[in-house]
């Protein structure tokens, strides 16, 4: 009890509240600007807080992290440009909704879904975090291999109409994922003697090009000289009915579960969580064909999933001292600088601080409802009033600056540009881009895990299947591949019976 009042006192202190509020707003902005991402913003801003109270620094991390995951949805919905990699799945249905004139509704759904996913994740962090953290230790290389395979199997749901092109896209992504120094043998692959390629193709650089340049070129093609009038946008007047909210509860629960599950595993990330949530929602839907054409459930699934990843990804960091992603690593670094020792003793030695940070993750999830909706309608919708031809160079500049600051390399600008032009042409040839991205993300994880697993088992491949968790995920992967086929078969039989 004494601890609770202490936590409440420090979390609700002026500095902490100001940090959370300001950082949430900033997070939404950073998420919404293509190229800028939360990792970079947190890395750049954390040093400014080293001299302040730890909870001010952590409140800032929580705000930027949660705010940006929602912020990424704003341009994804309004312009089909994902603000963060985790918002790619949001474009699938969010932008078609905008084209139908339902931008406000899509934004509201994204806002609520983000808040709900974040809240569920923060609650998981506060209640069963240490338990979940111990569970992640059972995931060795063999299990990671199957998780990657499970993610790949969900490509089946994302390929679109042409399975052959979908498969080609996936293989292309896998091949791009092999570029760089092979961590297991030290051999550089496909680097052509270029030192900057040793670290592989930077995911964010590729994604910014692939997903932001095609819409920018499309905007230039329209050559809109006047700008949208405010009436054409119809923002800020959307209401979600109770029936609609009730219809989303299963999607929210499923996506929260997936997001938390992916989040606690070190190395997996929010983008995988969003993809998996989306494909799960589509598989579970009675009308899977409506996905990709503006189904609100698609937006809800993707946004809930990527926010549910956030607090959960802090679980192994806070409970074990093992950072699962760069944001978690930065949090641990900040704790070290404040003289705290990350590890299993962290909570026992500093319950007020760790508990405070957990509370901040919860509060900033809820703050999305407060600042998110307002930011989306008041600021970003106004941007759309500008003539399209003025937006073209502005987005280009933001893409360039965002890509440049990641590694401080000019060559990354050209990688981004080349990826964008390729993405533009491939899209016109009805070649799906999502499998390329999934291959690029999951390929290295699959290859490295399976090779590590084989090193550990001394080359015995049966051990990939005989470990209990591996076996379960392997069976689930098989089910995921067979499920759409089964449903298609059922539908055909039913149709045949009707004739």
């Amino acid at each position, binding site marked *: 009890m004494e601890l609770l009042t202490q936590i409440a006192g420090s979390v609700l202190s002026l500095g902490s509240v100001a940090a959370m509020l300001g950082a949430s707003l900033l997070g939404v902005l950073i998420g919404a600007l293509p190229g800028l991402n939360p990792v970079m913003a947190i890395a750049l801003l954390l040093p400014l807080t080293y001299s302040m109270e730890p909870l001010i620094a952590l409140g800032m991390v929580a705000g930027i992290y949660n705010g940006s995951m929602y912020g990424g949805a704003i341009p994804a919905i309004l312009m089909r440009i994902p603000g963060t990699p985790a918002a790619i799945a949001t474009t699938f249905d969010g932008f078609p909704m905008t084209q139908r004139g339902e931008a406000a509704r899509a934004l509201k759904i994204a806002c609520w879904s983000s808040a709900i996913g974040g809240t569920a994740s923060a609650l998981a962090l506060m209640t069963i975090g240490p338990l979940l953290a111990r569970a992640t230790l059972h995931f060795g290389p063999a299990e990671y291999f199957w998780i990657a395979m499970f993610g790949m199997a969900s490509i089946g749901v994302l390929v679109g109409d042409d399975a052959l092109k979908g498969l080609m896209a996936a293989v292309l992504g896998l091949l791009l994922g*092999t570029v760089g120094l092979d961590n297991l*043998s030290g051999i550089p692959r496909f680097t052509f003697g270029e030192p900057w390629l040793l670290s592989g193709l930077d995911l964010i650089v590729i994604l910014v090009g692939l997903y932001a340049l095609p819409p920018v070129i499309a905007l230039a*093609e329209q050559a809109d000289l006047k700008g949208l009038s405010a009436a054409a946008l119809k923002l800020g007047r959307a209401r979600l009915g109770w029936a609609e909210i009730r219809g989303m509860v299963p999607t929210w629960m499923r996506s929260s579960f997936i997001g938390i599950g992916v989040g606690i595993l070190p190395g997996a990330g929010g983008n995988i969580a969003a993809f998996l949530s989306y494909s799960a929602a589509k598989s579970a839907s009675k009308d899977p064909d409506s996905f990709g054409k503006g189904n609100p459930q698609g937006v809800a699934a993707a946004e809930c999933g990527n926010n549910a990843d956030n607090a959960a990804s802090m679980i192994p960091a806070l409970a074990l001292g093992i950072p699962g992603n760069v944001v978690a690593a930065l949090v641990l670094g900040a704790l070290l600088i404040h003289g705290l020792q990350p590890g299993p003793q962290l909570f026992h030695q500093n319950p007020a601080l760790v508990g405070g940070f957990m509370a901040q993750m919860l509060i900033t999830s809820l703050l999305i409802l407060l600042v998110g909706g307002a930011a989306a309608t008041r600021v970003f919708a106004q941007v759309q009033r500008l003539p399209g031809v003025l937006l073209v160079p502005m987005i280009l500049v933001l893409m*360039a*600056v965002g890509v*440049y600051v990641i590694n401080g390399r000019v060559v990354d*600008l050209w990688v981004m540009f080349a990826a964008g032009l390729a993405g533009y042409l491939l899209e016109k040839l009805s070649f799906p881009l999502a499998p390329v991205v999934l291959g690029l993300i999951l390929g290295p994880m699959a290859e490295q895990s399976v090779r590590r697993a084989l090193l550990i088992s001394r080359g015995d491949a049966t051990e990939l299947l005989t470990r209990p968790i591996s076996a379960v995920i392997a069976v689930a992967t098989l089910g995921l591949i067979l499920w759409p086929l089964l449903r298609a078969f059922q539908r055909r039989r039913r149709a045949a019976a009707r004739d």
Partner: protein
Amino acid sequence: MTARGQDIVLGVLFAGLGLAAAWQAMGYRGASGTYPLVLGLGLATLGLLLALRSLWSGARVPRPLVDHPRHVAVTVVVGAGYLALVPVLGFYAASALVALVLPAALGFRRPVFALLAAAGFMVVVWLVFTGLLAKPLPTGFWSRW
């Protein structure tokens, strides 16, 4: 070009890319070569399949790659020029230039509006990156003075 012709070209291109990757991968030792080799051959096979399928049953309907060739060409050329100028002129100068030139090249004829929008935008970018994040950006020839 028709969709059929495009898909044949795309298939052949990917087959070539796959074969090139596979050939390159043959030079890598052991397990680090096998995986890209298999992927390269897989991509080549899929590319050939696509080309053959299009040859057999491709739709002979036109599928334009660009809706408005002049605007696309202008955007791509100015965009590439901008990226080339960033290290020379510095980030802020190059960005201000592209924010003015590109709308004009796309047919925007309200110079005062364009100037104000570009100025406002550059101030926001400056505040975020140099003011708030204190992030050094390419300075180009300014710092060599």
